């Protein structure tokens, strides 16, 4: 990966403690899986930011390689990949999600 792109990803990850890379945005998710994760994050009451990969082809491709994860949405807390839609669903069901996003600082 180009160093400039890697830097861009890393600075994005540093910009928000809880960051969701998704299709669309919080208000208008453009994919059912992205919408689900937005809904689950809202339930936790935590503040989170989203990044629309539909409007950012460079990040869309680069992040797949950076995280070794081929699909979106991707949820990051403190710069670490927490998972995609399925994992976030499991974490929400087990009550761990609010701990993971809440305990971050």
């Amino acid at each position, binding site marked *: 990966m180009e160093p400039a792109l890697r830097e861009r990803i890393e600075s994005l990850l540093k910009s928000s403690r809880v960051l969701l890379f998704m299709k669309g945005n919080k208000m208008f998710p453009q994919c059912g899986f992205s919408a689900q994760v937005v809904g689950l994050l809202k339930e936790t009451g935590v503040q989170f930011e989203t990044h629309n990969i539909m409007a950012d082809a460079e990040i869309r491709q680069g992040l797949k390689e950076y995280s*070794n*994860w*081929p*699909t979106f949405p991707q949820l990051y807390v403190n710069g670490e990949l927490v*998972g995609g*839609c*399925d*994992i976030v669903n*499991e974490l929400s069901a087990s009550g761990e999600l609010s701990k993971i996003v809440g305990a971050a600082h």
Partner: protein
Amino acid sequence: MIDARDVKQLLLTAFPDAQVELEDLTGTQDHYQAVVVSAAFEGQTSVQQHRLVYQALNDAMKGPIHALALRTYTPSSYAKQGNH
């Protein structure tokens, strides 16, 4: 698009011990749901387990499969959560 049998074969090649349940969610051979139970997931986090599955599917994830709903279990965690 990719045939369900081919998806299953890719998974079984990577995880020879696996129990694989695969469902074509839309009937269009590009939206699948997979449950994979394998001892290969022992000691791995969920993120690592899903990465192993994505790696097994490799090129199939780069176009032929548009969406994959995925659940991974070790044999013991699968026994604990019961059948479905």
